[in-house]
């Protein structure tokens, strides 16, 4: 387990960046694991019929992958106390190439007394931020 000294942290510090490749396989896997079988996440014809630009990644897949940057930094998933996001833009997943999601975590606030840090996540697909107010409060 990594040991983080809260006194050594600074607001604005980057804690890590991870690139996630989301393919159609990833979407099928997430559908099965989560139980969200909305067809816009695996059928081109259904996505087109409801006016979408293509098959979209589940917002909850983007949310679930993005937080891993904070989980790996702090050591274990049980240190995540509070995690919120807004879904601002869709992630369109190409049938061949998939979609590349680049997630960067930055320290947004430090509460030394409580021993917690707020990590702000930026999730970018196709040069566009797809999550808004993506904040993770972790126990150090």
């Amino acid at each position, binding site marked *: *387990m990594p040991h983080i000294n809260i006194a050594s942290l600074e607001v604005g510090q980057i804690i890590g960046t991870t690139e*996630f490749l989301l393919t159609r396989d*990833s979407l099928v*896997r*997430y559908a*099965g*694991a*989560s*139980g*969200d079988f*909305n067809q816009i996440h695996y059928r081109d014809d259904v996505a087109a019929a*409801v006016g979408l630009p293509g098959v979209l990644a589940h*917002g*909850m*897949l983007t*949310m*679930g*992958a993005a*937080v*891993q940057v904070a*989980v*790996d930094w702090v*050591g*274990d*998933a*049980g240190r*995540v*106390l*509070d*995690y*919120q*996001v*807004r*879904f601002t833009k869709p992630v369109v997943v190409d049938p061949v190439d998939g979609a590349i999601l680049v997630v960067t975590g930055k320290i947004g606030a430090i509460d030394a007394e409580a021993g917690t840090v707020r990590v702000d996540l930026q999730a970018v697909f196709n040069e566009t931020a797809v999550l808004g*107010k993506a904040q*993770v409060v972790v126990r150090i």
Partner: protein
Amino acid sequence: MQGKKYPASNPYLVGREKIREFAHAVKSTNPSNLDVFAAQAAGYNDVIAPPTFAVVIQERSLATVLADPEADIDFSRVVHGDQRFIHQRPIVAGDELTSELEVASVKSLGPHSMVTFETKIFDIQKQLVCTAISTLVVRGDE
């Protein structure tokens, strides 16, 4: 509809392999989700769920709302607006969880409505494990 409560669902038994399956699906490589010994070394009884796993329990509660004629929500018009999980403790393999959903707010935004659901998830000792807050945007006719 605001303030309406949907009762606790049948207990959901959290399986170790379900946690691993979900962890792989959200691209977790964190040992706390996958490796029993690593999870125990970190102080847990078994593997713990990724931070967004509670969505599985939330979805079960939401299904009862979507099936409620009074709620009158057309699922094909629903877009996920935002999501939050407040954890009292992580979900651990072996947990038996129940949930209770409350319609926290309903707001109109032009032809659309924004409905916020708050799902409280409890363990078998009736202790709160997680609060999942979800806002769905229901698109109206433009």
